[in-house]
């Protein structure tokens, strides 16, 4: 049967890898190519690379680094950050990337989701939904490029993006990002209601047990950043990934 994917989510800032805490304070964790080689050797299920500055700065994706990353990836690769046109998407796919993750451009206009999905298939478009709790504890859609809540119902926007052609949802619990304090299971449950496409849950993963919890709450796949790049209470940088057998045992039990 299909196995639940466990996906390292790596954040790119300029040419370095960083890891954030609740989307703030990016900490440098190393050279992306080196990290990707390690993940490649560890035979990870899939890899996600998100450029956290491209949309903020309104600049083009860094094709050079995407190409170098893709050249090291013998597993599926998803890229996100700064993609605003079909032509940019075409170029990224041609470098050896399988999926493009959209947020800013999709919030501006879902036509891009539609255009990329029509040309390259629904499976190639991931809609990135960042959700943060407001002061009343309600889940609100959040945009990473402006660091602001958006007053659009997050589930409504997600369904519109799927209707426009997004083949997968990346659901990020902003308040859990980098905390390794466990996934937001209620958010995952809400997201998975009436969801027809695969759901990748990210945010808060700090253990293998957390991965299992996220899957039990309805995630098709689980992504994590800090869990795969930090080690120990002082968050020393150490790239790890569970052995296949460990993951198999985790989901079998």
């Amino acid at each position, binding site marked *: *049967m*299909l*196995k*639940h*994917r466990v996906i390292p989510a790596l954040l790119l800032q300029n040419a370095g890898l960083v890891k954030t805490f609740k989307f703030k304070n990016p900490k440098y964790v190393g050279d992306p190519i080196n990290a990707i080689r390690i993940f*490649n050797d560890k*035979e990870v*299920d*899939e890899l996600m690379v998100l450029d956290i500055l491209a949309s903020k700065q309104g600049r083009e994706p860094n094709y050079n680094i995407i*190409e170098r990353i*893709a*050249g090291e*990836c*013998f*597993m*599926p*690769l998803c890229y996100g950050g700064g993609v605003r046109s079909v032509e940019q998407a*075409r170029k990224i*796919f*041609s*470098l*050896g*990337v*399988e999926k493009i993750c959209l947020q800013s451009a999709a919030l501006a206009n879902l036509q891009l989701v539609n255009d990329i999905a*029509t*040309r*390259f*298939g*629904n*499976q*190639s478009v991931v809609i990135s939904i960042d959700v943060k709790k407001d002061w009343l504890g309600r889940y609100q859609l959040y945009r990473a490029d402006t660091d602001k809540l958006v007053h659009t119902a997050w589930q409504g926007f997600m369904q519109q993006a799927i209707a426009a052609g997004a*083949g*997968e949802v990346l659901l990020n619990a902003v308040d859990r990002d980098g905390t390794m304090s466990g996934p937001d299971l209620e958010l995952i449950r809400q997201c998975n209601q009436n*969801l*027809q*496409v*695969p*759901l990748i849950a990210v945010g808060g993963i700090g253990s293998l047990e957390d991965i299992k919890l996220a899957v039990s709450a309805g995630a*098709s*796949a689980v992504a994590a950043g800090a869990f795969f790049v930090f080690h120990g209470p002082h968050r020393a940088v150490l790239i790890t990934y569970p052995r296949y057998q460990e993951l198999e045992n985790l989901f079998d039990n």
Partner: protein
Amino acid sequence: MNIHIINVGLGNVASIQNMLKRVGYPSNLRVTPDTNQIPDLIILPGVGAYDTGMTLLGEYNWTNYLKEVADRGITKILGICLGMQLLCDGSDEGSHPGLGLISGRFQRFKPDNSSLKVPHMGWNAVEFTEFGSSLFSISHQMPRFYFVHSYHYSGTNDDCILGWCNYGHRFGAIIHNKTITGVQFHPEKSHRFGMHFFNDYINSICSNTG
């Protein structure tokens, strides 16, 4: 070993070229067919919609070329993902006929169980048939491959199936007809198993000139 990868904007040609390089085979990306020198192997990659795929193959003069190459029966053709689907008769996804080199059509997954999402996306096991196992030594390693697709093979003749996958129900994941082979998964994105797959494929199917 002269390998051409069809490069008409149908997806991940760089990934396939990378993987072939990794297992020791240089390859050429071709926008249009090379009519001077017919290669040993043509790889038809594919990501995207069925009709777009057939239209692009037609636009760049591949449709008739591939049919002629298949008729001659010397050059091997490997279709990957949408490429596999284009090798067959057609798909419910589109209205264009396929290349018709392997019999069968493609149908959309309709899982009864709502926990099964469409597309079928992720790593899944492939169970090789007896004939499949004789061609692919990797069959003894409990291989898993990366799949991303919403439509699955549906043929009336199980003889052309070399490997099965299961997602809600069983479907052909590797299909074969003489010199033509199609795989629904992405061997170029299936790390160790993909490397073994290409090695096995080139060593058994491509070295067999019959």
